[in-house]
Every structure is written in C-alpha cells, then in structure tokens.
C-alpha cells in the first residue's frame, strides 16, 4: 500500500494574523508556521494504514517555499519515509494552479491512495484535494472520519452537516481527513533524529499563470462587547427578553 500525503505549511492557529502593508497578504513577521492541522490527521492515518498492512511506503508531497521542508521533516518524524518538495515562491492564490502542479507530480509517483487534510487552515478553501482527484480521475471522499482498507477497496465514513455517509471506493482513490479521524502521534526522539536523514527531493513547481488574484484582505468585524444583565434569578426575565428580542436567538 503506497500512500502519498499532501501537506501544507500554514500559520499556527494561535498566531495573531496581521495584514501586510499592501493589504493583499499577511505580514509573516512574528508568525509561527506549522503543518496544517488537518494534514496531520492525514499523515497519522497513512502511518496507521501502513502499520496495519505492514508494507508499502509513505511519500510526503508539499508545494510552497523552501520552508515547507521544515514541516515535511516533521511528517518524516511521524513516520513517512520520503517526499517531494515542489518549490514555489510565487504565493499563487489560484488553487487550480496548485492542484495541477500537484497532480502533475502525482502522475509520476506510484500510489494506491492520496491523502489530504480536508482544508488548509490559512485560506480554508477546501478545494485542492477535490481538484487533484478530478485531475487524476480518481474518486475522492472528503471529510473522512473513519477508514477501512480491504481487498483493494476502501470503506470511508464521511461527516456531513446532515449526518454520516459511508462510502466504498475502489483504489486508487483520494481522501481528505476531518478532525476525529485519529489522534496524530507525537514523534519519538529516535524518529526525529532519523527524519533528518531521510531523502527529500526538491523540484521546481510547474505553475500555471494564476487566474485568480487577491484584491484585498480584511479583518473580521470586531466582536461587540459582552453584556452582563444582572445576577441570579432576578436577571432571568431580562436575559430571556434580550435573547428573544435583541439577539433573536429564541
């Protein structure tokens, strides 16, 4: 079972995002970068599948600046064997261009499965995985919370807003991991050390000219301050009144 996991380097979710001077990109100063948290579920799942089947290898694929290699090494420490870094400094916002570049690389690799995080927490577009699957002409299950592999087929449980769907797909296939799929492991020190020596192939990414452009970035509206209506039982009628008439929640 050969698995490719696509990972993206994103700002840490705890980072206070500042919009840069041009208003079109974030200011990277003081920002800590991490593996996209959803991609960690994908990596963990790949490792677990491999551990269960006892064969095959895990390849990491990442597109981005040279710093992407830092997070690739973290994926190595968790248990991936090798990987390809598609170097790209353009910060191209066009997800289709990214998907095409990834798909082109994936066509050169042998795999039974391609795993993604359900979305990257920086732009939250949740589109690349689907686009890649389309370009590769393989099925994709998104928001996967459970996976079972048997006889060249995968049974995947996906979460939707309405409930759960259980799908069976023929491999090769793509999957996009949702939180809850597993608990990503904390790497052992020996594996962190070994990760430094694992092979990492660097290539220049082939990127189409973007058909999408960021025009402006804006902060979300500031949250209005909270209100204390009173204390104890006496405050209940007023609270109910406000929830009903002002907040229109009940």
């Amino acid at each position, binding site marked *: 079972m050969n698995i490719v996991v696509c990972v993206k380097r994103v700002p*840490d979710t*705890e*980072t*206070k995002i500042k919009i840069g001077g041009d208003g079109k990109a974030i200011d990277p100063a*003081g*920002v*800590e970068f*991490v593996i996209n948290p959803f991609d960690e579920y994908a990596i963990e799942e790949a490792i677990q599948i491999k551990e269960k089947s006892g064969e095959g290898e895990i390849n990491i694929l990442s597109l981005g600046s040279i710093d992407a290699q830092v997070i690739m090494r973290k994926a190595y420490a968790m248990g991936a064997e090798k990987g390809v870094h598609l170097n790209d400094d353009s910060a191209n916002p066009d997800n289709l261009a990214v998907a095409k570049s990834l798909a082109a690389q994936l066509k050169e690799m042998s795999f039974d499965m391609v795993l993604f995080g359900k979305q990257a927490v920086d732009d939250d577009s949740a589109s690349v995985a689907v686009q890649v699957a389309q370009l590769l002409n393989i099925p994709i299950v998104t928001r996967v919370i459970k996976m079972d592999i048997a006889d060249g087929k995968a049974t995947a449980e996906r979460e939707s807003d309405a409930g759960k769907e259980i799908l069976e797909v023929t491999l090769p296939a793509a999957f996009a991991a949702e939180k809850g799929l597993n*608990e990503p*492991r*904390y*790497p*052992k*020190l*020996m594996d*962190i*050390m070994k990760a430094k020596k694992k092979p990492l192939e660097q290539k220049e990414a082939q990127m189409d000219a973007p058909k999408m452009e960021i025009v402006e970035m804006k902060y979300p509206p500031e949250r209005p301050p909270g209100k204390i209506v009173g204390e104890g039982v006496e405050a209940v009628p007023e609270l109910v009144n406000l929830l009903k008439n002002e907040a229109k929640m009940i």
Partner: protein
Amino acid sequence: MLPIAGKIFLLILIALTVYFFVQRAKYLIDLLKLGTPEDRFDNPKERWKYVLGQVLPQRCATKNVTKKDLAGVGHLLLFYGFSVYVISYGFHITEAFYDKLSPALFGVAFNNFFYLLLDTAGLVVIASLLWAFIRRYIVKPDRLEPSMDAGIILVVVFCLMIMSFSVEGFRLLAEETPFTDWAYMGNAFSQVFANMGLQESSHTLFYVFWYLHMIVVLGFGIYILYSKHLHVLAAHPNLYFHSTKPKGSLEPIENMEEAERFGASDITHYSWKHLLDLYACTECGWCNENCPANVSGKPLKPKDVIHNMKEHLLATGKDLLAKKAEETQGDEEEPTLVRAVVTEDEIWDCTNCMACMEVCPVAIEHVSKIDEMRRYLVLMESNFPAEVQTVFKGMETNSNPWGIGMSTRADWAKDLGVKTLAEDSEVDILFYVGCSGAFDDRYKKVSVAMVKILQAAGVKFGILGTEEGCCGDSARRIGNEYLYWMMAQQNIEVFNGYNVKKILATCPHGYNTLKNEYPQFGGDFEVVHHTEFILDLIKNGRLKLKGGLAKTITYHDSCFLGRYNTIYDQPREILGAISNTNLVEMERNRRFSFCCGAGGGRMWMEEDRGDKINEVRTEEALSKNPDMIATACPFCMTMFEDGLKAKNAEDKVKVLDIAEFVANQLIDN
C-alpha cells in the same frame, strides 16, 4: 584464652563467615558494575567531610526528628550502642587467639572504662530495641510497614545483648581474677548465675555462651548482606558518593544526536550509583510519609519504587550477569523495569517536589530515577498522558505550554514603560518573565507588581519581550529532554546575544533551571529569585514600605524555591517587614513543605488518581485560618486558587505573591 581446638573451631567459623560474606559482597558489587559509568569520585575531601558529618553526629537520622517522630534519636542510640559492641567483638576475637589482646592492653583504667561503656551501651541498645519494637508492632506509624526483616533483626540483636551479658556474667563467675569491677551488668548477671547455683559449671557455660554469641555475631555479619540491614554497609558509600551537583538538577542526555537509547527502561540503564542507592535503602519510610503522591492516596510510594527496584535487581542479577558474561547484554524488546517493576501510574504521579530526597537519611536520588523512566516513555515510546501533547506542541510552536501566540508574549507590559533589551540593552538586570508571568492572567498581575517594585527602587532593568522563550522546565521534568534542550539552547543564545550577566526570575521553575541546569549547556548567568532580590532592595533601603499590614498570613514554600534552592527565609523576612501580625506556619513547612501538586510537569496533567494534592494542601492552609496565603510561584498560586474554589473559600482567603504584597505596600512618591 581458648584451647587449641577452640581456636581452630573459631578459625573455621571466621573462615566460613569470610567466605560467605565475600561471596555475597562480590555478587552485590558485580551487580553494581552492571550499571552505567558515572563519575562520583571527584572532590574526595568534600565527600569525606559530608559522610562523616552525616554519620558521626547521626545527622542522617536526626535531621528528620520532630516532636511527632523521634525515631532518629532511637537510631542514634542504637548506632552508638551497637558500635561499642562491634569494637567489643573485635576484642573478643583477638583475645581468643592471644589473651593479651584485650581491652586491658590499654591499661586497667581503659579496661574498666571500656566495660562500663559496654554494659551501658548494651542497656541503651536494649532500650532502643524495645522502643523500636513498640513503634513497629504496637504504635505502628504509617511510614513503617511491619516487615519480617525488621522483626528478625530486632529479636536477634536483643538476644545478642542478653547473650553478651551472659558471657560477661559466666566469665566473671568462672575466672579467678575478675577482668573488671565496672562491668555492672556482667556482675549482676554473674550474681544471678551464682544464685542459680551455676558456679561450678560456669566455665563450661562461659564457653557455650561465648561460642553461641560469636556464631550469632558472625552470622549476623552475613545476614546483613541479605536484608534491609545492607544499609549498614551501603549507606556510608552512598553518602560518600552523594550528588555534589545543584540539588535535584537532572543530568542532560549526552550526544543526543547519536544516542540509541534515551532514559531508562531496564535496571541496567541506571548508573552504578543509582544501583547503590537501592542497597542503601533502610526502608525507613520517611520518603513515603513526605511524598505528596502517597499522602494523597496515589499509587506512587517512593520507598516501594526503590525497594521493588532492589528486589528486581537482586532477583534478575544472576541472569543479567550471565548475559553480560556472554556479551549478549542488549536491550530487551519489552522494558524489564518500566511497567514490569515500576508502573506508568507511579512514574507519572511524581511531582518532582524532592521531599523524598530531602528526608532520605542515606542520600537516595529518587526523583532522577523516576524522571529517567519518564524520558524513556516520552522519547522512546512517545507514551505520556494525552493532555501533555498540546503542552509539548505549544512549547514547540509558541514557546509556552499553553500554545498562546508568541507574538503576544510581551502584551502584559504594554503600558508599563518597560523597555526590551532590543530597545535598550544597557541594563543591570534582565527580568526573565517566564510563561506564567507573560500569559497567565492571574500571574501577569505579579509581573506587573514586580515591575512596579523595580521601578520604585530605580533598578535599571529590561525584558526580552517576544524574544523570550519558555524555560523548558516542564518539558524536562515530564521527560522531553529534546524539547527542553531546544528551549535552553534558544534562551541561552538570546541571553548571550544581549550579553546578559544577571537575571531576575519570578517563577521558581525558571529560576531553578536557569540557575542550576542551564550551565550544563554553557549558559552561565547570575540568576536571582524575586524574593531574594526584593529582600535586598528592602534591606538596602531602596523601597519605601508602609508596613503594618494587619492580616494573618501563611506562607507556602514552593518546592523549587525551598528544597531545590534553600530559599526559606527570604520570603518570610519580606512578609515580616510589611506585616504587623505574626506569620502562621502550616504544619508542614520549609524543608518538610508539602507540594502544591504542580511540579514535575504535573501542572499540565489531569490528576485522576487519589485526592487532589492542591486540595490537601489548601485544607492544611485553611486549618490555620489565614486571611491570605502567600506564595512565590505561579504554579503554587494556581493550585491554591483552584483549591480555595474547591473548598468554597475563595471569597474568604486571598492568594497573593510575595511581589504583590510588597507592591501593595509601596509608598507612592
């Protein structure tokens, strides 16, 4: 003087004793050699001074004497009483071969005095044995568990004393010229035997009793090596080889990049000194009695950990030695110590408070043993309480255990007019704020109070702002040495970048690791805790304080401040300087202080076994009816505030840091 056949018989007895003794001793020493190397041979002068200073005045045992627990005095009596007997057995043997080699060799006065001393020592030994017997089997204090070993020894030594008196008695009865008049117990026994009509058979009975008591003495010499009384022989070297490093500091992992194993999962992963610790254990139980995990009903009992490790070593020793001889000594698939002998629960229960080590009479190093097993679990198995993963990740990404965005690290100081070293590095002291001081809403107030004090005293100081990193103490104590190492490296680099010489820390965990452990990585700075620094400011008249705070205050000793760094007086002196009322002390204070429950990375773990340690401690504080609880550590503060909430006392009792007490008492200029 013995007839020739008697001499031969005695020689055979001695030869047998030596044979069995050497056999066993060699085995025990071979087992020590299974341990990893460790240099504890430096500084022999200081080491001799230490061991003599502990043993001769029996400081090892008497240091723990309290009104409730006088056993240390009993040990002193037994130790000196029995020591006189050990000398007398020497004389017995020499005299047996050549009768000039008796105490009389040194003159009649010495002889008389020696027997006076000996008989008195015998009574002292009997008295302390009875005392020990009553304690063990009637009073039964918690820390003593009735053991077969202890019972055998009490009975045997008691019998030995009676036999010794009998030997004296029969000899006095049998010999024409009494060897001494001052042997009052011997004379008394002789009188009794005379009254019993044993005058005629006294000669024979003397020999019978003499051989009998020599057999017991020699047998006892061998038995020591098989029992908890091994401490009689092992405690002294163990005290000699005690750690001369800063108290409680953990050792770094050498050559982390190349190492093939981290921490300890098998007994042979420990150094020979750690193994010697096991032999030295007297099973006195003082560690258990002072261990917050044990007291709060958790599985961890430090004495049991040591004892079980000893039993494990002795039980598997032959196999281990065989493997070593065949050079098949390797790492087992499954750890043979972790889980098999010391459970994961025990390993994670420890708060690293070092109470066990503080009270241990024989310098056993419990905490580092446990932390070595944690290293194994974390670094080799990635196996630790689930909630700790976010802590590690928070430290990795944002250099604080909460994982709060590191760009906000200096937000607490925004409007205080505090400069960072990047803005002005010409300062006398760096205020290392620490993660709690920077991110914990409650403890940020302590940072603010500290700034107020520094500004009032006109101290030229700076902070590192967002360049400051987590000290890493929690990571190290949880067992993640790699993460700790990265934190330490990073901080040392930043400190050196600004040519920092002196550092002020409020959190005792940062204080301790910066001061005592960063030198392991080349970080040599003068580090002071705010309680030390503030007291100096007060003494030098640099702070104008109102004084006269009329509140009842109890001060809680932080483990990493108190036991780790012997800072007990400074916070109390500061409180004394501002308070009208006497400080009330909790039952357990200073070196006996009871941990808040948050040390050793326990701050970040769920406490789901036993009672909550912080609630136990809070109850203890509340029993003194204080208006305020004074702390000098952010973790202690959190634990008390939570404890007070659990006890519904948060409105009645306030928790304040020493810095806040002082800041509140500043006279505004």
